[in-house]
Every structure is written in C-alpha cells, then in structure tokens.
C-alpha cells in the first residue's frame, strides 16, 4: 500500500502521470477477457472515448497555467487596489492616529485591567478573543500535523542520526547546564506577563525550546513518561477549556454589570490583574506543549 502510494507520488511529481493513460492501460488489461463477449465496434468506441479524454486532458493541462496566471494577477490587482484605498500613513482621521483607542488604553488601562504591562492588559483583557482564537489555531495545527504524522505509528523508529547526536558530549553538557535556567526563565516570563515584558506565548516558546533541547540531548523516552500523547491531550484541552470558560464568565459578568470573582487587585503584585495571570498560564501550557509536540511528531512521528 505504502509502496503503491510512493510510486504514484513519484510519477505525479515527475509529471508523466496521466489519468487517461491509466484508463487505457486498464482497458488493455481487461480487453482479452471481454473480446469474446463484446462486439468489436464497442471496443473501438471505447478507445475513441479514451483518446478524446486524453486530448481533453491535454487541453486542460495547457489551460491550467493560463487560469493560474489570470487568477494570480486578479488577486494581486485586487490587493494593490485595496492598498490604494487605505488611509495615508500618519493621517489624523483614522482611529489609530486620532488617539481615541490609544487614549482609552493608556489612561484607564491600569485601573480597568490592573495590569502594569499595558500590552498584556490589551492582549488578554480588551482583546482576549484574539488570543483565544490564536490558541485554538495552534491546537488545530497540531491536530492536522497529528493526523498526517500519526498514520505510521506502528513502524519502528527510523531515526539513527539523532541517536548519534544524543551521545554528543558537548550537546549533553550544554543541555545539562542551560535547560534548568531556560525552564525557570520561561516560567518567570509567563508568571511575570502582567508586570513586565513577556506573556504566555513567549514564555511557552522558551519552555518548548528547553524541552526540545532536553529531548535532543537526552533520551526522549524519559521525557515521554511525563509528556506523552495522553497527558498532552489532557493539558491542552484542560487549558483551552479553562480559557474559554473563564473568558465566557468574564464577558457575561462584564456585559451584565455583575461583580466578578477576579478583581483587579493591587497593581504590581503577582496576584493581581484578575484573569490575566491564569490565562497567561493556560496559553503558556498550550504553546510549550504544542512546540514540543511539533518537534516530537516531526522527528519520531509520535509524541
């Protein structure tokens, strides 16, 4: 099955695969059996039909570049036209430059969200829907990669070069020294997201990088005891579910003017800024696990 698929892909890649060719081949194969039963006219029309299909397909192949060119130029022209319709750079009439949105964020951002880092306040409070969508896009991308890569799960590990790398003394010692610091730095970035530069995404990326380094330098089997497909699913779904429910609760309370459990608190404290710290943690968990999951799926075909 796999060999057939590879053959098909190679033929298709080299460009000498034609569906009508396959059709005639199949007819040639079946014709000796049918010859006694079928009248000769009918087989003649059959080949005629195949020939017509072949010429049609050739015409189609010739037309494809033309259509692609027309389509590309149409899209490019449309995009350029949209660019000309946009307001000029620095014009004062736009909401971004008139300062309406900006003033609101700068003046009342701290009192409304409780986040010293205004960027975190905007990302996870004013525009929390965007970040929720981003996390779900990451999750959907991982699911797509898993669908593609987990097909060949039953095969043995094909890697050999990475095994050689694992015995590399320089890599192992570098990983031994730097991985704990990277992990702590990532956790610091996540927990400090509402107080200083950082946040869930960057901290999660740092933690994911540390996990990748550890798994490259040491045996990934030891990491798989903690982080396998089951725990990955659990972590990601729990984090995304928590994010969605917490944000639903916060939107519901905000729209109806109710008091929320998550108050802004004293700005500057670690436990302040309401939902931003838990949401940052959830995003960090999703991003770090997804980064490591991508790496693991790409190298070994499984998490």
């Amino acid at each position, binding site marked *: 099955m796999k*060999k057939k698929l*590879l*053959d098909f892909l*190679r033929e298709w890649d080299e460009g000498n695969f034609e569906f009508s060719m396959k059709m005639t081949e199949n007819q040639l194969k079946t014709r000796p059996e049918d010859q006694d039963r079928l009248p000769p006219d009918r087989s003649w029309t059959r080949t005629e039909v195949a020939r017509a299909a072949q010429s049609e397909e050739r015409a189609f192949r010739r037309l494809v570049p033309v259509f692609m060119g027309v389509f590309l130029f149409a899209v490019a022209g449309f995009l350029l036209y949209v660019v000309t319709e946009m307001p000029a750079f620095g014009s004062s009439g736009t909401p971004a430059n008139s300062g309406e949105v900006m003033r609101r964020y700068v003046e009342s951002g701290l009192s409304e969200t409780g986040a010293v880092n205004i*960027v975190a306040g905007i990302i996870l409070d004013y525009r929390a829907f965007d970040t929720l969508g981003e996390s779900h896009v990451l999750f959907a991308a991982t699911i797509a990669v898993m669908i593609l890569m987990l097909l060949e799960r039953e095969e043995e590990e*094909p890697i050999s*070069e990475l095994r050689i790398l694992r015995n590399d003394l320089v890599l192992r010692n570098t990983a031994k020294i730097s991985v704990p610091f990277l992990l702590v730095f990532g956790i610091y*970035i996540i927990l400090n997201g509402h107080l*200083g*530069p*950082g*946040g869930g*995404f*960057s901290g999660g*990326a*740092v933690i*994911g*990088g540390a996990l*990748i380094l550890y798994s490259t330098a040491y045996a990934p089997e030891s990491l798989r005891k903690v982080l396998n497909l089951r725990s990955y699913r659990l972590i990601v779904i729990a984090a995304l579910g928590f994010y969605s429910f917490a944000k639903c609760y916060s939107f519901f309370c905000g729209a109806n003017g109710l008091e929320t459990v998550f108050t802004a608190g004293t700005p500057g404290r670690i436990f302040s800024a309401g939902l931003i710290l838990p949401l940052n943690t959830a995003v960090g968990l999703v991003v770090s696990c997804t*980064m490591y999951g*991508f*790496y693991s799926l*790409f*190298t070994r075909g499984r998490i």
Partner: protein
Amino acid sequence: MNYIEIALLGLLIICGIAASLTRNLMVSLIIFMAYSVIMSIIWAFLRAPDLAVTEAAVGAGISSVLMFITMKKLRDINRGFTQEEGGSHEEEAP
C-alpha cells in the same frame, strides 16, 4: 546608539539577501537564524521587549529547529524513493 542601529539594519538587509541567494539550504537556514537574532536585538532597541523575547525564542529557536528536521525528513524521503526504484527494478529483471 544610532550607529549601532544603522549597522544592525545593514546586517539585517545583508542577511535577508544572503539567505535567499545561497545555494546550500543548510547555510541559508543558519543565515536565517542570524537574521532572527538581529531582528530580536532591533526589537529590543525599538522598546518592544515582548517581541524581542518572542522573536528570539520562536524565530531563532523553534522555527529553525523545525526547518532543520523538515530538511532531514525530505532527504529521507528522497532516499526512500531511490531505494524503492532500485527494488522495483530488481523485481522486474527476473
């Protein structure tokens, strides 16, 4: 300060052109990593430390690792094709 920024921007342009002009994919990837590192320093100069951290972690770290692995996979796939070809010819010969 200003001279450093100009030098960094010049390096950025050189890296961008070099990454697209080199023949060897591995070299081009390493130049791309250097591009990301320079870009993260420029983000720090532009007072966007959030972006600097993210660029350093994602641009220079994880995306390059993923591209290295993809290159290795592609080489494996090509090797598999040539092996499959040889196998099928041997089958046809007798």
